[in-house]
């Protein structure tokens, strides 16, 4: 995996936000870009490329990539459901939502469906407690989830995938 010229330009912009010599500060945003470019997860190759771009040691990248929960260190499905299970979501029925997704997709938390379409991840509080239960899907939040709403989201994902094939 290598960044396109356009992404390299973006990396330069990020580095310019920091004083000279403090380019390591760009690591977390650049890892977000690397994950996007690499199909939603960070391979060792992708992390090494980031190290090279920022002129830091690969270990400095690994130790950061393994610390933060948004970086996926193994491949994920086309659609990643990150369902919140913390207190306020639990009070509003997140357990039932998670059970329903597991049953509907036939996977456990942390697994990907056989067709590589969906990954289910249970996550901790995403700051949407007033709109519970909720999950993150890509860049956006899906809030006030119900069983029906989850079914619709899954159907939409499937038809989007078909359309793009």
């Amino acid at each position, binding site marked *: 995996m290598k960044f396109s010229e356009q992404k390299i330009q973006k990396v330069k912009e990020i580095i310019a*936000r*920091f*004083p000279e010599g*403090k380019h*390591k*500060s*760009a*690591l*977390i*945003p650049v*890892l*977000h870009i690397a994950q996007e470019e690499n199909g939603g997860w960070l391979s060792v190759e992708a992390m090494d490329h980031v190290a090279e771009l920022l002129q830091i040691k690969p270990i*400095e990248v690994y*130790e*950061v990539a393994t*610390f*933060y*929960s*948004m*970086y996926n260190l193994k491949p994920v499905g086309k659609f990643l459901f990150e369902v919140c*299970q*913390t*207190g*306020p979501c*639990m*009070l*509003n029925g997140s357990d039932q939502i998670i059970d329903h997704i597991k049953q509907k997709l036939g996977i456990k938390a942390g697994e990907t469906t056989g067709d590589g379409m969906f990954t289910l991840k249970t*996550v*901790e*509080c*995403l*700051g*949407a*407690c*007033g*709109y*519970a239960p909720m999950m*993150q899907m890509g*860049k*956006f*939040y899906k809030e006030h989830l119900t069983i029906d709403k989850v079914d619709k989201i899954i159907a939409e994902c499937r038809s989007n995938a078909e359309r793009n094939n």
Partner: protein
Amino acid sequence: MGKKILLEKEHIEGIRYFDTYRKNGGYAAADKAFKMSAADVVEEVKKSGLRGRGGAGFPTGMKWSFLAKPEGVPRYLVCNADESEPGTFKDRYLMEFLPHLLIEGLLISSYALGSERTYIYIRGEYAWIEDILDEAIAEANRAGYLGQNILGSGFNCQIYVQRGAGAYICGEETALLESLEGKRGNPRIKPPFPAIKGLWDCPTVVNNVETLAAVVPIILMGGEAYSKIGLGKSTGTKLISACGNINKQGVYEIDMTISVEEFIYSDEYCGGIPNGKKLKACIPGGSSVPILPANLTLKTAKGEARMMTYESLADGGFPTGSMMGSGGFIVLDEDQCVVRHTLSLARFYRHESCGQCSPCREGTGWMEKILHNIEYGKGEMKDIDLLWDIQSKIEGNTICPLGDAAAWPVAAAIRHFRDEFEWHVLNPEEALKRNFGLAHYADPIEVAVG
């Protein structure tokens, strides 16, 4: 009707954009501040009595006055937008709907502190809000409110948004600074405090989103006028994000003069509990603060009405009180199981412990396992004492307050709901069926002080 000064303009269409914000009085505080000296701006904030809105409630003016100003060394202002405390979603609301209020607050505060590079560290999951803030910053640059020689003052300032990548711990200010430097979010040992040695070892102030937004009305009305809103040392207004079992979840701005009872039951705020259910318990300030049973939620141990102020929420200390914290207000109705809820929080803290200090790294895992056993009918009576013992050994024995934050919810749950833990141990099969039959908790129970 409470006084709104932060969210006053939230319903104006297009208030997210510079032109509309400006037309409705936006950046008037910045205009005013740039006619004052930086020291006078700090003085107004001191006079206002504003306290940090992130959770600790430390006086903002005092924090600002600690900032070291060595010659030739840059100073930094960092906005803590890593809102991650379960129950808290107020900063998100502010940034999403009133981004220019934050940018204006940041500009004034940067001027007061002499920060030419100011960073907003926002939690990784708020990806779409990063775009909203970037757009607002670009607009402010075009209008001459950011950039070089702002309003002819000779002051230069740029604001940058840095998005994290999923770590509750980065809400702790020194962990946030580590993360902003491109490292793991391991909190630093204090002292030195960030005011002396912060970002890249330079003097730094870290303030919460709501705190910085509040600087705008403080400059507009003057610190003294601001200090007259509220009760006692709880000056100004506070955003409360209300969630859990209530009719109207959402973000409310309160002037700190109303009672908890009014907040929960009045239609202006939470609108009561759905389906006519009774109040069982409340966590008034984000998941870390002690849970209170219904009677202690509504009244202090002295029998006075519990008010939505820093002082009243903390009245009685931990034995019978709680904390304002971040304003994440979580309500539990009579059907909720405190053991299960505590387990959910314990899992959260185990997941979020950075692993630096053994009491927190190991203790949070043990607490989760023991709670799991009790909840799933495999607990023994001695486990409840063991749980108490573990939490007491985490508290105060870690570098950062995450250890305390993990210990307090467990301690308070056992303190106030011990018989519910015992019931789980005595009735494992019933517990598994989730047939709690504990509605009596909604009624006032005797307060065990101490």
